[in-house]
C-alpha cells in the first residue's frame, strides 16, 4: 500500500474536484465579477477626478465653485448599491443553504476526524478503521453519489479542517460536533492543513485526502482492517515497543499497545508521511523521528525516548513491518 508521495498540486480553491468546492467556485465567480465592475467604475471616476481637476500652473487664485451636495445624485448612489446588496445576499443565502443543508444519502460514508495538537485522528466507525493524517475516501459518481460526511471533533484546542479543492473550512471545536462533507469526483491526492491557530506546531498539522476508485477503496479498507503483522524477525523491536512508554500513547492492533494519545500505528507504513506531513515516511526519517521527534517537528508533544542505538535499530525495524 505504500505510495510514493506524488507531485502535490497547489491547493487552489479555483481547482475544485468536489461538489461543495464547485458550488463555492460558482458563487465566487459571481461576486468577483460584481466587485471587478465596481472597482473599474469607482477607481476610474477617482482617477478622472484626480487628473482632470488637479491644480495646474497658471490657475488663478480664486476658489472653485462650491457644491454643497445633490439629493438626486446621493439618492442614486445609495439605492444602486442597495439593489446590488439584495442580489448578492439572496444568491449567498441560496448557496449557504444548499451546501450546509445537503442531506446525506444512505450510501454516504461516515468518517470522524479528531483534531489533536498537532495531528489528525481519522476514524471510520462503520468500517472499524482508525488511522491518522491521511484521509482515504471513495470517488463519487454523480449518477449514484457516494459522498463522505465528516464529523469533526477536537481532543484539545480549536483546529480547522480545510482541503481547499474539496470543500471550504469547518472549524474543529472541543465540546462541539461539527459536520462537513466532500463529494470528490476525480481520484487523486489533495492537500490541506489545519487552518485555525492551535499552538506551536500549527504549521506542522498537515492533512492529505486520497480519493480512490471504488475498487481501490475497497482494497484499502481491507488492508486497514487487518491487525498488525507479526513478523518473527522483528520480535525484538516489538518487545522494545511494548516495554518502553510507546504503548502509553500508541495503539497497534493485535498487540497489548492500546494508548490513545498518539496516532494509531497499526498500519504506519501505509502512510506516506510522518508527523502529520512534516517529513516523508522514509526509514531514515522514521529513525530520526523515533530518536527525537523535535528534530523533525520542533515542539511536537511526543518526547524523545532516549533509546540505546541497539533498541532504536530494533524498534525502527519493527515499525517497518507495520504495513
Amino acid at each position, binding site marked *: 500500500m505504500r505510495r510514493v508521495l506524488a507531485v502535490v498540486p497547489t491547493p487552489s480553491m479555483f481547482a475544485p474536484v468536489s461538489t461543495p468546492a464547485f458550488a463555492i467556485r460558482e458563487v465566487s465567480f459571481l461576486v468577483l465579477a460584481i466587485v471587478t465592475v465596481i472597482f473599474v467604475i469607482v477607481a476610474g471616476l477617482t482617477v478622472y477626478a484626480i487628473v482632470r481637476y488637479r491644480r495646474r500652473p497658471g490657475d488663478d487664485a480664486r476658489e472653485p465653485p462650491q457644491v454643497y451636495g445633490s439629493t438626486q445624485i446621493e439618492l442614486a448612489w445609495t439605492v444602486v448599491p442597495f439593489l446590488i446588496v439584495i442580489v448578492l445576499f439572496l444568491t449567498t443565502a441560496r448557496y449557504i443553504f444548499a451546501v450546509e443543508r445537503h442531506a446525506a444519502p444512505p450510501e454516504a460514508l461516515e468518517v470522524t476526524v479528531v483534531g489533536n495538537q498537532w495531528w489528525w485522528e481519522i476514524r471510520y466507525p462503520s468500517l472499524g478503521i482508525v488511522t491518522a493524517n491521511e484521509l482515504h475516501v471513495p470517488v463519487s459518481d454523480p449518477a449514484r453519489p457516494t459522498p463522505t460526511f465528516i464529523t469533526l471533533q477536537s481532543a484539545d484546542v*480549536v483546529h480547522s479542517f480545510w482541503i481547499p479543492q474539496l470543500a471550504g*473550512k469547518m472549524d474543529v471545536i472541543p465540546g462541539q460536533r461539527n459536520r462537513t462533507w466532500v463529494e470528490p469526483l476525480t481520484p487523486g491526492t489533495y492537500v490541506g492543513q489545519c487552518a485555525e491557530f492551535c499552538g506551536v506546531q500549527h504549521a506542522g498539522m498537515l492533512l492529505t485526502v486520497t480519493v480512490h476508485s471504488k475498487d481501490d477503496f475497497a482494497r484499502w479498507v481491507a488492508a486497514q482492517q487487518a491487525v498488525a503483522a507479526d513478523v518473527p524477525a522483528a520480535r525484538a523491536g516489538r518487545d522494545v515497543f511494548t516495554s518502553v512508554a510507546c504503548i502509553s500513547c500508541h495503539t497497534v492492533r493485535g498487540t497489548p499497545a492500546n494508548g490513545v494519545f498518539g496516532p494509531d500505528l497499526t498500519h504506519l507504513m501505509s502512510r506516506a508521511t510522518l508527523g502529520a506531513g512534516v517529513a516523508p515516511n522514509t526509514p531514515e526519517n522514521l529513525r530520526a523521528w523515533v530518536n527525537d521527534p523535535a528534530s523533525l517537528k520542533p515542539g511536537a508533544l511526543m518526547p524523545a525516548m532516549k533509546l540505546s542505538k541497539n533498541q532504536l535499530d530494533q524498534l525502527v525495524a519493527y515499525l517497518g513491518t507495520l504495513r
Partner: protein
Amino acid sequence: MSIVAPPIAAPDMLVERGGLLAKLHEWVVTVDHKRLGVMYVVAGLAFFLIAGLEAGVIRWQLAAAGKTFVSPQVFNRLFTMHGTTMVFLVGIPIVFGFANYLVPLMIGARDLAFPRLNAFGFWAFLFGGLLLYFSFLGGDGLYGAGSAPDVGWFAYAPLTARAFSPGNSTDYWNLSILVMGFGTVATSINLIATTLTMRCRGMSLGRMPLYVWMMLVVSGMTVLALPPLSAAQIMLLLDRFLGAHFFDTQAGGSAVMWQHFFWFFGHPEVYILMVPGFAMVSEIIPVFSRKVIFGYPMVVAASLAIGFLAMTVWAHHMFAVGMGAPLNSAFAASTMLIAIPTGIKIFNWVATMYGGRIRFATPMLFACAFLFQFLCAGLTGIILSVVPFNWQLTDSYFVVAHFHFVLVGSLIFTIFGAIYYWFPKVTGRMLSERLGRWHFWLFLIGFNLTFVPMHWAGMLGMPRRIYTYPADRGWDFWNLISSLGVPFQVAAVLIFVVNIALSLRRGAPAGSDPWDAWTLEWSTASPPPPYNFETAPVVESRRPLWDLKHPDDPDGPHE
C-alpha cells in the same frame, strides 16, 4: 467675528525655564489635552516601529519555504505581539491621541470635559503597553526570559487555558489588554461629554466638523464594544487563576463563547480604528480640493449608520465555526449592508474632488492612495461576506491581505497624511514636502508589493499564522514578493522619522493657517497656547474660516 486669536506666545515660553527634569515633570503631570494628545501619538509611533520590526522578522522567515530563521515558538510570539501591538498600542492611541488634540480645538473648547480622566486614560494605556512588553522578560519569570504571549492577538479559547498555555505569558496579554481597555473607555466617555457639552457658541451638532462627528461615533462604539472584551478578559483571568470554567472546554466551558465576546469587540474595533481615518480624510480632501465636502448631512448619516451596523456584524469572523445556515445568512446580510454607507462616503469624497483645484501636497497624496486602497479593502470585504466563499478564504492569507489593506493601506496611510497635515499646527513648523514625497512613494510601493500578493497566496490555499510551509505548494513566489516589499516600507518609515527630526528643528515656520483651511483649529496660533483660544470663538457655519475669508459668500445660507 471673534474667532481669530492674535498670535501669542508658545507654551514652552510660558513655563518656567528649568532643567530637563523640570521639563519632564511638566509632561508627566500635565492634564492638557494637547500634550496628552502628542504623548499618545508619539507613544503610538514608537510602538509602530516595534511592531514593524516584528513584522519584518515574520516576512524574513516566510520569504522562502522551510526557512529556520526563527523557531516556531518565536514566530508565534512575534505575530501575537505584532497584532496586539498594532491594534492596542498603535491604532488606538494614535486615533485617540489625534482626537484628544483636535476635538477641543475644532469645537472651540479650552480642554476636554474631564482633563484628569484624560491623563488617567493615557497613563493606563502606556502602562498597559509596557506591561505587555515586559512579558519578554517576565513571561516565564525573570530567569526564564523570552516568553511573550504566543496565543495570537485573538487568543482563542481553550488555547489560553492553563493546560495549553502554562507560564505567565498569557496573563501578561490578558492583564495589559484589561488595563488599556479601562483607559480607552475613559477617553471615549471624555470625548462624548466634551463634544456634547463644550461646543462654542453657534456650533450646533449640524455645524460640527466631520472629524468631530466621526470621533463622536467612534467614542460611542468604543463605549459599547470595549467593556464586553474587558468582561471576557476578567472571565479568562478567573479561569486561569481561580479555576473557573467559562472557556475551559475540558470542564464544560465554551470555546465559541470566547469568540463571540472577542469579536463583539473585535469587529466594532475595526471601525473604531477606521472611522478616525475617514474623519481625517474628510478634513484633508476638502481643503486640498479647495471645495466644501459634498453632501455633509449624508456623510454624517453614513457615519452613524456605520456606527450602528458595526455592532451587528461580529460573527462574520465566525462563518466556519458551524453556527448554522440561518445565523450565517443573518451576519452575511448585516455585513453586506455596511458596505452601503461605506460606499456612500467614498462617493462623497470623490464628488468633493470633482470640480476642485486639487493640490497634491503630501497629506493629499496619502488621502488619494487611501481612496484606492480603501476601495480594494472594501471590495475584498464584500468578497468575504459571501459566506460560502468565506469558508475558503477565512483564516487564509487572503484575510491577512484584506485587513492590512484596511489597517495599513487605509488607516496608516490616513494617519501619515494627518501627521503631515496637522504637524504644523502642533509644532509650528512644516514637515519637508520633498522628504514627504519620498516617504509617500516608497511606502506606497512597499505596501502594495507586500500585501497585494497575499491575496493570491490565500486563494492558493495558504493558511494564516504558519511559521513555515512546504516547498511544493506553489506559495514561494508570492511570499518572496511580499517580503521584497519590506525594505521599501522600512526606507519610507526611516525617511518619515528623519523628516520629523529635521523639521522639528529646521522646518519652515508654519504660521497659524498654512493650508488655507477652514476649521477652528487653524484660527489659533501654531502651536496653540495652553488655553487654546484667547477669546471664545463664535461660529455661524460649518466652515468658520471660510466665512471669514469670503465675507461676500459665507457658507451659512447654503447649509
